[in-house]
């Protein structure tokens, strides 16, 4: 199979990635080749096979739902590119964007 340039641009938009024209061309070629290889899976009969949901049959139960203080606000904001009044600062949301 071969992905079109429009498909590559659509995926990049869904993934929120700005790509250069060179990247688009490269990923179009590489992803097409990779997906081609993956058609191998069609050979496997999975009609009555459930999808795997967890590798371990018995899972641990849920922990007690109790609030507790882990880290304070200043610590949580310490890696923020921009913070103000104990909040993360971001540029304005203009268009619909999506």
């Amino acid at each position, binding site marked *: 199979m071969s992905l079109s340039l429009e498909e590559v641009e659509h995926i990049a938009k869904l993934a929120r990635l700005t790509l250069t024209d060179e990247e688009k061309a490269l990923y179009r070629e590489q992803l097409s080749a990779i997906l081609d290889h993956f058609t191998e899976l069609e050979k496997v009969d999975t009609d009555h096979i459930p*999808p795997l949901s967890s590798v*371990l049959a018995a899972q641990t139960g849920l922990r007690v739902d109790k609030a507790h203080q882990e880290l304070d606000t200043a610590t949580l904001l310490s890696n923020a590119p921009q913070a103000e009044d104990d909040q993360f600062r971001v540029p304005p949301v203009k268009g619909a964007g999506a």
Partner: protein
Amino acid sequence: MTAFTDWTLKESLQALCKGKVSSRELTDACLARIDALQPELHAFLALTPELARKQADAADKLYAAQRKDNRRPVPPLLGVPLAVKDVLCQEGVTTTCGSKILENFVPPFDATAVARLKRVGVVTVGKTNTDEFAMGSSTENSAYGVTANPWDTTRVPGGSSGGSAAAVAARLVPAALGTDTGGSVRQPASFCGVTGIKPTYGRVSRYGLIAYGSSLDSVGALARTAEDLALLLKVMAGYDPKDSTSHDRPVPTYELPAEADLKGLRVGVPAEYFIAGIQPEVEAAVRQAVAKMEELGAEVQPIHLPHTEYALPVYYLIAPAEASANLARFDGVRYGLRVPSDELIDMYNSSRGAGFGPEVKRRIMLGTYALSAGYYDAYYGKAQKVRTLIQQDFVNAFESVDVIAAPVAPSTAFRIGEHSNDPLEMYLQDIFSLPANLAGVPGLSLPVGFDSQGLPIGMQLMGPHFGEETLFRTAHVYQQATDWHLRKPDLN
């Protein structure tokens, strides 16, 4: 004089307990060796000498107090130097995941595995190099440059825990933490001639491990012997309320028995792991190691894991799909790189476009496509069904054997740049290590020989869920009877 850095973790601990060496001396010896070899190997992304010396001095005080009053027990790994793969958060230490998008990220907390090891007294010397977000098989995908293989510096150390594997092989540290999503502990261990454990999924908490593929990620370790890995896993393993997929099954002591044989152990050799294209010397060394196990008393039988060939497409659909969701958090808002913009969506797109490297973008694209409307059933859904069959292969196999022995990778360490232009060719390097992650079973990689170029060859032992004890015992008995794991690369 034997250099302190030649000691295994266990030997270092014994020397510390007997007062033959101080933690400060051990730590300084490691730091000096790291400094000397860093330009050649580039195994570390960050070094924390001040922190390490502080931890070492504190350890020495506890040992001194114990010597005065031996009723005061010391924690089990007190004073031994350890390196941490740079995808695991360590409080106050820059954690980049080998990515530009996290260039200045300083975690305000420790990953649970790191916290548990710190609590029992390890000395943390620094963070090791990794493929960006652990996506890669050579460390070439690190945004900060490749790590060199200590056995031949023109070759890759494997990946993604290549920095950790190179650091242990070059005897910069006795042990290092790694993570394994599709072979990232076992394959670099194999390429660098060290021993590595990828535990059962859920055995070690993933809290503080910056997520790649959440249903596959496991925190493991690399050292020179299986015995040392057992000491580390005993501390790291166990339920953690901060990771709901961590398991509450009791953690064994992983004590290794004194007996030097493998009597009664049933070893399966899967035909599907000895295929055309495998380097003949790799096949020969693994078969010879299996013969050695037989000589030591193991009962060897051929087995089948019929869906092995599908592990590659299954993994490279599921892991990127999970990655595309996990890496959505890197958007320039709370941490990491932000490319300034006057509009929010533009900021997301440009920050991610500028911050992620080529392989990470490729996997995000692949995963996004596999999950997108119209393709979900054909790709992601299909892959999860075939994953059920792969897991069933292991369940069936472990009805008749205790351990599966197979090559870790189809070849020894390849040259830097050899596969870097063709992603599919690079993915093919993982064919033998992916199935264990897809099935959630534990795998241990140990050195079993060298090829004609002098490069190490690894064998992996896989066990049923929570079968780490058998893997350690098997590898330990093998290592008592052989000396491949004691070989040392020729570095200055």
